């Protein structure tokens, strides 16, 4: 379904073609008809959303304009605290929880006038990329409900792709925004580490967790990102001229294991950018083969202490697979965690070096398209790869290093399943990455 973009919404509400209440009701109707087959929402906040949409319309009528997100219905991954509502993290471990205050990101969205439509499904505690392990059942792909929407922000991506919200708020610890964005055919932005506060968000790894938006377009991601930053002065998105852009492609490791159709989509996108005048060269991350082990030791070391008490007192409340992985995490030795932190610094320097002289790195987002729910492994280049490993393979590096990264739709497989193109920018320059991404989006959408 074609979802109204935030920019279209902003134009139409100000010209009185639509109202916040009217668009909200359309989203609620989509939820009523589509969510039974997609399971994207853990709960819908219809009453609160109607109240907030009415207020948004009244404020505009009274001349109070909160900016581009004013009146926009947005879904929220159920890791974020919203005052007086449960934050389930898709786990029965959290049964009975009610948030006493808004997460920082939620408070900023409210100040920007967003209408919070409900809390979306996710992989339990965001500790997985398939969304299969959720206390509330798996979220499903809008184009084919037998397939996963990716994860961990899978319910969020499904809610956006199915037109149940105009945008959605997610988190990304190893790719949990970018993976479902790529698999569901939306834009997903992981800003620079620390740029958006994670206070009031159930943590997976406080050193890897990032907060960011999933949207229909790069321009929408720009508006959403600036609202999350709490910016009150609006700055325009300025799509970069492709002829002036230089891209590096880290082919070794990152293009070694790709589904043939994902590879074709990626190479077609690279060809299109080159034809449009971009300069593109291969670059290298010399220690790329250590990315997965560094990631595992950091995320395990960070997650274990948060879950230790609950694993002792209420282990049966976890889904079995997440419980086992968290139990495994408790066995990581301090010396190996520290080795991983040392490795993180090495990788950070290598990504900085790879970006030197380039505006962004270009690589696919996920090596495979949407996969059938229940799939354990996938065959690539003659080897059986676990789904979890392969889905994280191209995204987790930039959680380790903190570089901003964005996934854009870049074509579809012969079965009509979306593929994602990932752009990675310089740390602290998320705005610049968005300018570049907007230029790339123009080329790819022709």
């Amino acid at each position, binding site marked *: 379904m074609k979802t109204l973009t935030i920019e279209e919404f902003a134009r139409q509400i100000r010209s009185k073609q639509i109202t916040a209440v009217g668009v909200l009701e359309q989203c609620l109707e989509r939820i009523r008809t589509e969510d039974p087959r997609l399971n994207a929402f853990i709960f819908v906040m219809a009453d609160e959303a109607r109240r907030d949409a009415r207020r948004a319309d009244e404020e505009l009528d009274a001349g109070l304009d909160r900016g581009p997100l004013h009146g926009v219905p947005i879904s929220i991954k159920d890791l974020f605290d919203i005052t007086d509502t449960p934050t389930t993290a898709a786990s029965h471990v959290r049964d009975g929880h009610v948030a006493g205050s808004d997460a920082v990101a939620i408070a900023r969205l409210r100040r920007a006038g967003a209408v919070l439509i409900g809390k979306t499904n996710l992989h339990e505690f965001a500790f997985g990329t398939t969304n299969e392990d959720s206390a509330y059942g798996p979220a499903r792909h809008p184009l084919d409900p037998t397939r996963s929407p990716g994860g961990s922000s899978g319910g969020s991506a499904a809610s956006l792709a199915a037109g149940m919200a105009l945008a959605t708020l997610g988190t990304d610890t190893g790719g949990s925004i970018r993976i479902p964005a790529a698999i569901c055919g939306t834009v997903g932005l992981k800003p620079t580490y620390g740029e958006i506060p994670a206070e009031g968000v159930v943590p997976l790894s406080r050193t890897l967790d990032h907060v960011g938006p999933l949207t229909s377009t790069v321009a929408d991601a720009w508006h959403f990102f600036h609202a999350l930053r709490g910016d009150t002065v609006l700055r325009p998105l300025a799509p970069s001229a492709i002829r002036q852009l230089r891209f590096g492609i880290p082919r070794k490791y990152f293009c070694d294991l790709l589904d043939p159709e994902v590879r074709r989509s990626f190479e077609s996108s690279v060809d299109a950018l080159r034809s449009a005048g971009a300069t593109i060269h291969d670059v290298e991350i010399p*220690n790329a*083969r*250590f990315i*997965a*082990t*560094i990631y*595992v*030791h950091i995320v*395990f070391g960070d997650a274990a202490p948060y879950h230790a008490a609950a694993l002792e007192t209420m282990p049966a409340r976890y889904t079995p697979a997440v419980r*086992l*992985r968290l*139990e*495994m995490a408790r*066995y*990581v*030795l301090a*010396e*190996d965690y*520290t*080795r*991983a932190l*040392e*490795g993180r610094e*090495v990788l950070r320097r290598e990504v900085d070096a790879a970006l030197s002289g380039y505006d962004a790195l270009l690589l696919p987002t996920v090596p495979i398209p949407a996969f059938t729910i229940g799939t354990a492994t996938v065959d690539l280049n003659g080897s059986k790869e676990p789904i979890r490993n392969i889905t994280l393979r191209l995204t987790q590096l930039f959680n380790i290093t903190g570089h901003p990264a964005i996934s854009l739709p870049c074509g579809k497989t012969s079965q009509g399943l979306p593929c994602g193109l990932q752009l990675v920018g310089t740390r602290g320059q998320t705005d610049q990455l968005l300018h570049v991404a907007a230029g790339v989006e123009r080329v790819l959408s022709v």
Partner: protein
Amino acid sequence: MTIQDWLQAAIADAERRGLPELKPLLEGLAQSTTLLRSAGFGGSANDLPDPGEDFDH
């Protein structure tokens, strides 16, 4: 602690805690840790100087 010692201790502890199904996961983690240690990130107290380096001190 060597990885083999760690793995044996971890599997024994998991079994004692009624979690024998952790064994294959811990074996996978051991492989990952072996790779991590092979990288030598952060150096080691017994690192030998480069043979070509002048270490007359």
